[in-house]
């Protein structure tokens, strides 16, 4: 790895193994900007239309998103930001003190694999835009799980390869592009919504968002609310945003997540949903099959929209590939970060060829949250309850454990049961996140109480 890249990485990961000092803490403005940019991403082009495909009505979307996003903001504010500003450490460092280094490696693997599939979905989204000018690229629909042809595969391979190359060599450039593009991308989302209203000849969003006759309703208002609450569960309930919010001067900066939720996960999702609503009403598209984001955005706002889809996908996928590479490198410290990133990029590119991940994004995000978020409950118990109930805080650090079995059992048992139940009963996995999180925290608390009853510190 080049010295330049090493320096960049060190800058990104300052204070990885120590609390952030007061001099390095940042003001509220940077958090509002960061959240607004981070949650106006390529995934939003998929999620809005998926709501239409699932037959939700205007009330479900407008009210469900309002409730769910509010709950997500509260989670960021009163859980993540509170813990982050109290301990001022990264999730990984805090976990290492509780779980031991070896168990953190397992968490890293789960995290890295999930990141790869998420980035793969972004490759798929970007390919639907890049493929628009080429007649022989058959666009995937919501029901496609396998590659749609040779041309599609080639487009995904090229995009995934380029994203990987950039992730290996130029994380800083992507971070800059992402930061700069954010306000413009949000306006493109808004433009898509406005143009769709113009084409439909009405501004009555409630009427447009009513499901067309014959659509099968798969989720209602609570399904939408729980999805909005838990689609970023790994970040708030799962505490991965501790890595960011530990730089906040005050826990109240957690309110900044509202910028991401209400611009990205409210306005942008609704605008993206309007795109498919138009295609269903005016072009006769089957809502269950959907239409790929690229052609819909091109039809609405032209080449500017295609550029937005590519940039939105690229700027989301690139840091994700980079983080996945770091996670893999964390498991095998002797491997260079570049090698870890290439492995992550290769998995992501292969995943991107298969539309299954992007087209089932709502389900995938639910599984992702179910697996990763409960680990945050361990941190919450350790931080808020350990002294009160008399269990050891940071047990792995104090007892010199490399692998805390209590944490593994508390994490794996509820997650395993929940994923089995979701699979066998066919309900959406994002309903699992809250019960899993509570169960994980309770099991950890009870087991810790039993195994170390007199060791409270």
């Amino acid at each position, binding site marked *: 790895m080049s010295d330049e890249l090493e320096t960049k990485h060190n800058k990104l990961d300052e204070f990885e193994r120590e609390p952030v000092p007061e001099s390095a803490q*940042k*003001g509220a*403005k*940077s958090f509002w*900007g960061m959240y607004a940019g981070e949650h106006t991403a390529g995934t939003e082009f998929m999620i809005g239309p998926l709501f239409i495909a699932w037959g939700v009505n205007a009330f479900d979307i407008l009210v469900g998103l309002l409730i769910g996003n509010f709950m997500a903001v509260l989670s960021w504010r009163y859980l993540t930001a509170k813990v982050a500003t109290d301990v001022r450490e990264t999730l990984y460092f805090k976990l290492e003190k509780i779980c031991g280094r070896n168990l953190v490696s397992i968490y890293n693997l789960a995290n890295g694999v999930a990141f790869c599939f998420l980035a793969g979905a972004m490759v798929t989204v970007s390919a639907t835009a890049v493929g628009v000018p080429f007649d022989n690229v058959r666009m995937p629909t919501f029901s496609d799980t396998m590659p749609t042809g040779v041309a599609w595969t080639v487009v995904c391979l090229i995009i995934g390869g380029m994203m990987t190359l950039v992730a290996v060599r130029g994380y800083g450039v992507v971070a*800059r592009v992402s*930061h*700069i*593009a954010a*306000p*413009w991308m949000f*306006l*493109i989302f*808004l*433009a898509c919504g*406005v*143009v769709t*209203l*113009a084409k439909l000849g009405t*501004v009555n969003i409630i009427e447009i968002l009513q499901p067309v006759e014959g659509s099968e309703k798969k989720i209602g208002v609570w399904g939408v609310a729980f999805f909005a609450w838990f689609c970023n569960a790994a970040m708030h309930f799962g505490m991965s945003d501790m890595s960011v919010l530990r730089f906040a001067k005050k826990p109240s900066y957690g309110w900044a997540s509202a910028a991401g939720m209400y611009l990205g996960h409210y306005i942008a999702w609704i605008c993206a949903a309007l795109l498919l609503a138009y295609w269903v009403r005016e072009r006769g598209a089957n809502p269950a099959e959907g239409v790929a984001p690229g052609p819909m955005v091109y039809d609405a*706002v*032209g*080449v*500017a929209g295609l*550029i937005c889809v590519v940039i939105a996908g690229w700027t989301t996928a690139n840091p994700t590939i980079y983080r996945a590479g770091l996670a893999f490198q964390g498991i095998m410290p002797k491997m260079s970060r570049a090698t870890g990133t290439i492995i992550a990029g290769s998995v992501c590119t292969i995943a991107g060829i298969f539309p299954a991940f992007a087209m089932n994004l709502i389900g995938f995000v639910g599984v992702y949250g179910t697996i990763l978020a409960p680990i945050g409950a361990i941190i919450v118990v350790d931080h808020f309850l350990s002294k009160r109930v008399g269990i050891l805080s940071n047990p792995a650090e104090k007892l010199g454990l490399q692998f805390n079995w209590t944490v593994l059992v508390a994490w794996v048992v509820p997650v395993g049961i929940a994923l089995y139940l979701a699979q066998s009963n066919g309900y959406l996995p994002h309903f699992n996140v809250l019960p899993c999180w509570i169960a994980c925290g309770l099991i950890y608390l009870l087991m810790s109480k039993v195994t170390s009853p007199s060791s409270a510190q």
Partner: protein
Amino acid sequence: MILKALAYIALALTIVPPFMFLGDSIELDAMKNVMIAGVFLWFATAPLGFRDREAS
């Protein structure tokens, strides 16, 4: 200062034409062309115009 002003104009070129299209004041193709101009102007001016924003 000039770059910042141009960047704001770029954002206006991105969002004003869709509203004009909604108000029947511009054709769809013309709207799309103006929006492309907005893309180029934004990416040409914003990186330098909002350097302070990046630094934060």
